[in-house]
């Protein structure tokens, strides 16, 4: 509540700062002197001074206040309640927060904890009110300082532009921060996982059953984390997908760029692109409810035993999904092959298909390889189709008619729903995520390198 009020106050002060700065600059310029900057920049300068420091303070305060208040509330508790294990401590914290937010914890709360929750609420309210006060003071102070600086020689535009360019740099750093965030979160959790399960067992083990029991005496209480069946399943589905997507995508690209009349190309290309725009969950639904029964019926007609969730159905649909990736990337590289090579081949009497097969394709090969690798990394990282259509049983098999499971499927199923975050079961998802990230990243890096090298050749 106070936070919303403060945001509104800050916004109002910023707008006010702009107008005050501007009118002040106009007044200064009124007696015929030339300002260094246009009055608008003076206004913007004052607005930045009014809004920015207060807003930064606001963000910092709002982020830290909760944990500080919780810490203070905990320190008020008697020692016998706080001298407990880490796990009990986090439970205690959750209890305090729940009580403070008026959520029932399901049992009669300890009076001291109740008091701590009340204390926490008081601290939060106090914090919010003082933030409102301090924030407003900072904003008004900033406004006042900046306004008093306004003079004929103030380089308001240069100062304002410096703030903007810093903001631009910060925005472009978000990409780096994201990467760091991904790497750190995967790495830290994966390290915690590998502290319990050895990396060798994870990468080379042949049995995957991540179910860990609640009690020690339960059957299968250990949980097995050999990820090879997942890698094989992922590979199998990717191979099936590529077996569909590469021939079809490549031949479409060749037809579109070498044979198709302009009208056909103009009509068919956007339609093909639609395949890439359909959400993956739709493909998953199609694979699970239309393709899988179809494959099963055909398989039974041929006398083959097909499981109801077959790798073939999922892989086939995934192949259809990545056709446009292969075709549009190949289209680009085929178009980049210089016409002179084709003309030379025609001049020697080659037919069109001979030219394509013996001249254009070899010349475009590195680019096509790059395109195929990009498509493969796409297939490896795809989640929804396999989650919905490929099943969960970790079979170590190369038979496309069996059900297999993939790395992404396991990540999705391990982490859906409320999970205890410290069990190897949930942590294993981060181990799998790390493998997935490394594999797709290296495929991409290599592919980009290959494509780039190839482009330089003809530029």
């Amino acid at each position: 509540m106070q936070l919303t009020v403060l945001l509104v106050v800050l916004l109002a002060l910023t707008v006010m700062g702009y107008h005050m700065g501007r009118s002040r600059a106009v007044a200064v310029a009124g007696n015929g002197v030339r300002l260094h900057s246009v009055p608008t920049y003076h206004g913007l300068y004052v607005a930045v001074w009014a809004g920015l420091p207060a807003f930064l303070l606001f963000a910092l305060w709002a982020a830290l206040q909760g944990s500080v208040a919780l810490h203070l509330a905990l320190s008020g508790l008697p020692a016998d309640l706080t001298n407990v294990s880490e796990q009990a401590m986090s439970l205690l914290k959750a209890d305090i927060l729940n009580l403070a937010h008026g959520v029932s914890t399901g049992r009669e709360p300890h009076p001291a904890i109740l008091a701590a929750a009340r204390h926490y609420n008081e601290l939060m309210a106090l914090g919010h009110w003082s933030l409102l006060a301090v924030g407003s003071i900072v904003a008004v102070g900033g406004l006042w300082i900046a306004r008093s600086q306004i003079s004929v020689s103030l380089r308001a535009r240069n100062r304002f532009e410096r703030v903007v360019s810093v903001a631009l740099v910060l925005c472009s750093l978000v990409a780096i921060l994201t990467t760091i965030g991904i790497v750190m979160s995967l790495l830290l959790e994966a390290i915690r996982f590998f502290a319990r399960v050895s990396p060798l067992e994870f990468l080379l083990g042949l049995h995957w059953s991540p179910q860990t029991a609640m009690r020690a005496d339960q059957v299968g209480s250990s949980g097995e984390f050999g990820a090879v069946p997942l890698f094989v399943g992922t590979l199998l589905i990717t191979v099936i997908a590529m077996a569909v997507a590469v021939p079809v995508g490549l031949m479409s690209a060749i037809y579109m760029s070498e044979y198709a009349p302009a009208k056909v190309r103009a009509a068919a290309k956007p339609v093909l692109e639609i395949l890439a725009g359909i959400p993956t969950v739709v493909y998953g639904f199609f694979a699970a409810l239309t393709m899988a029964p179809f494959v099963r019926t055909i398989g039974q007609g041929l006398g083959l035993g097909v499981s109801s969730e077959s790798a073939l159905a999922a892989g086939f649909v995934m192949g259809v999904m990545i056709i446009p990736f292969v075709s549009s990337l190949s289209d680009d590289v085929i178009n980049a092959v210089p016409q002179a090579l084709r003309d030379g081949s025609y001049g020697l009497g080659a037919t069109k298909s001979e030219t394509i097969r013996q001249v254009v394709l070899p010349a475009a090969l590195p680019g096509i390889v790059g395109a195929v690798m990009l498509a493969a990394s796409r297939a490896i990282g795809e989640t929804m189709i396999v989650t919905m259509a490929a099943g969960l049983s970790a079979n170590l098999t190369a038979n496309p008619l069996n059900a297999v499971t993939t790395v992404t499927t396991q990540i999705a199923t391990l982490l859906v729903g409320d999970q205890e975050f410290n069990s190897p079961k949930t942590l294993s998802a981060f181990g799998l995520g790390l493998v997935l990230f490394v594999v797709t990243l290296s495929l991409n890096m290599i592919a980009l390198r290959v494509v780039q090298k190839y482009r330089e050749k003809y530029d």
Partner: protein
Amino acid sequence: MTDLAQESPIVTSRYQSDAFAARLRRRYAAERRFKLAGMAAVGFSLLMLAVLLGSIVVQGLPAFLQTQIRLEVNFDPAVLDPSGKRDRQELAQANYQLLVRNALQSVFPDVTERGDRRKLSDLVSSGVAFHLRDRVMDDPAVVGTRQSLWVIAADDVDQIVKGASPRDVVETERRINDRQLAWLDVLEANGALRTTFNWTLFTAGDSREPELAGLQGSIVGSLLTLIITMVLAVPVGVAAAVYLEEFAPKNRWTDLIEVNISNLAAVPSIVYGLLGLAVFLNLFGMPRSAPVVGGVVMSLMTLPIIIIASRAALKAVPPSIREAALGVGASRLQMVIHHVLPLAMPGILTGTIIGMAHALGETAPLLMIGMVAFIVDVPAGFLDSATVLPVQIYMWADSPERAFTERTSAAILILLAFLIAMNAVAVYLRKKFERRW
């Protein structure tokens, strides 16, 4: 031909021999085959698209219709308000299921056996009782009256009436038995059975009962998530693109950022989900299942798309514009904000819309951050538990009831309609503002 060749050896060039003709025929046949293979590839892709969309349209269209049954409901004061004081508490807790049962009983007075009576009341949805209660709570004056109401039929009845489940199979393979079918025929003959447009699909939240389940919750959830995504990703993405394209010096740092962005664009979406789970939920303690977390994760995911599209749009603005602006004394920032950005805006907008469409259709990362919960209420704010349209599709696709299959397809149609609308806007903008320099 060979005779001729023997008579005048001069005419016999290797280009007229039989072997040559055969070779040429073979080469031309290979040429035709190759071209046909190309056409077949394009045809296959188009066919798959048609099969995909066709199967979903065929499965999904029936879900827009809903079977209703007309009941003569007697709002019996003896049931609803035994004390006669019109006490709201008492009215709210009354046995409305009994009203439904009585109403059905009055149509089929000969049904007396207990099991049969239950089968009879199974014809209408279990949500009807709540509907009747809402009616009474809105206007307690209806107590004591008789009203003719169209109520929602149960999903199994709905499937039979719409022909989605066959009638002519053995009784044990149907979820509706022979007696119930006979009752339905009677109702139909009385004109007490109709199919209308399924408004519930748009006005209700999720439900375990297919006939009561709707998409409003997930559509609102998608909207909230998309708003956060847009608010975060668009300014940051455009600013990053402007910096990299217009200001950044060519050095190792900017190279690193560029490589980084192109790699981020290819990171599997589920990895962003892991990032969201580890950083935003566990480290920052943000709420599970909330659109705000979903939006933050989605904005990180769409950021590379927006940056790449915006950079392409900025690159397309000719350098002469920049030189002219600088020439008349503009600062670099003024040049960008007053001249380059407005000219690049259509391209940036198009890229942004395509990135948003991508975010709208994405499912996997949201599974990680708990947006996959069963949530009945329509979310009212960015911190409420919510789910989004693609996740709703994923959850419904998992439900065993037949009626959910057609509703899943209908949900897909609605999702595709949103995507088509967004892409149409993008294409329109591109067509309208496209400039060739």
